């Protein structure tokens, strides 16, 4: 079994066949993780570094509607590119952060916010960690009190007699 495993691992591409460089394989992996390199094109960036920083901050709070768990700053989707451009336009035009968020929310709904508002429907979402923590503390507290209570139970008369008997024995 062990021999078999060793053989298999030798056949694996990354370790490289004898005399062959693993570089092409490594390069292949590099291309496979393309989306991780979806940093915005430098030409998209605003010239004013302060404004660009603001735009990036806003963009990182906006969900890309195509790859729904990425922000528009992280996503390589074309729509994300369009939305990044719009964020920069609004920032350049002097809109506040809230105004840009509202602009997006008017079109894409609260789903576009990666951080949802605190409302009745998101109450559980926001408070779940706190509720879980409190529940954990409560359970721990009850369990502790119980085991303490068990320890503190005094011996009854027969047990006392038994103990005395045991102690008296040499």
């Amino acid at each position: 079994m062990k021999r078999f495993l060793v053989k298999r691992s030798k056949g694996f591409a990354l370790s490289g066949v004898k005399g062959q460089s693993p570089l092409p394989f490594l390069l292949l992996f590099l291309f496979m993780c393309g989306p991780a390199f979806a940093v915005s094109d430098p030409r998209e960036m605003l010239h004013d570094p302060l404004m660009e920083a603001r735009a990036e901050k806003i963009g990182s709070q906006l969900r890309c509607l195509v790859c729904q768990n990425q922000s528009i700053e992280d996503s390589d989707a074309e729509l994300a590119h369009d939305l990044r451009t719009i964020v920069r336009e609004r920032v350049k035009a002097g809109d506040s952060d809230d105004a840009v968020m509202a602009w997006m929310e008017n079109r894409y709904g609260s789903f576009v916010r990666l951080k949802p508002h605190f409302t009745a429907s998101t109450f559980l979402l926001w408070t779940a960690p706190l509720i879980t923590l409190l529940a954990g503390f409560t359970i721990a507290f009850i369990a502790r009190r119980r085991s303490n209570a068990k320890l503190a139970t005094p011996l009854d008369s027969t047990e006392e007699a038994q103990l005395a008997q045991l102690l008296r024995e040499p």
Partner: protein
Amino acid sequence: MSNEIMRRRLITTVPLVALGAGSIGFYTMLNRMETGKFDPHDIGNPTVGKRLPDFSLPGFDGPGFTSAELVAEAAKNGPVVLNFFASWCIPCANEAPVMLALAKDNVRLWGISYKDHPTPLRSFFAQGGNPFARVGMDSGRTAIDFGLFGVPETFIVDRHGMIAWHLAGPLDADAVNQNLLPKLASL
């Protein structure tokens, strides 16, 4: 002692019941996803119930149209179905026969092509037919005002120039008969 037995029974049954309930819940969800009653990617569209956004679009052969023209048409002749599509979009090509059937049924159908070019658009219509009374070409901005996140998406504009209905994804016969046509009839 009976308290202890009770406790043990609870410990054995509660997880089983919870597992059962969870399984039924999951099964229902997957079933509803399969039959199209539930789509976890459907995020709704906040433009529904609001006024049609303003736009002015060029056409691919001759003039396109403006939001004002669309509103005027809806006010004069009744609700208009507005379809965002693209010649490069495969679901849109699959949707084309449904659109042609709608046009034949005298549904007022206007189209906006998304990030498209006149030449591929011409061959798209040459292949699948052009069901639209008017076609505008959008470079992407108008679509964002509609909260669009892909093509095809379909809207209904009512007589008052309000967006009354929306569907993300291709229209098929079921969606037309069960959702689009009843909605049009109710407006």
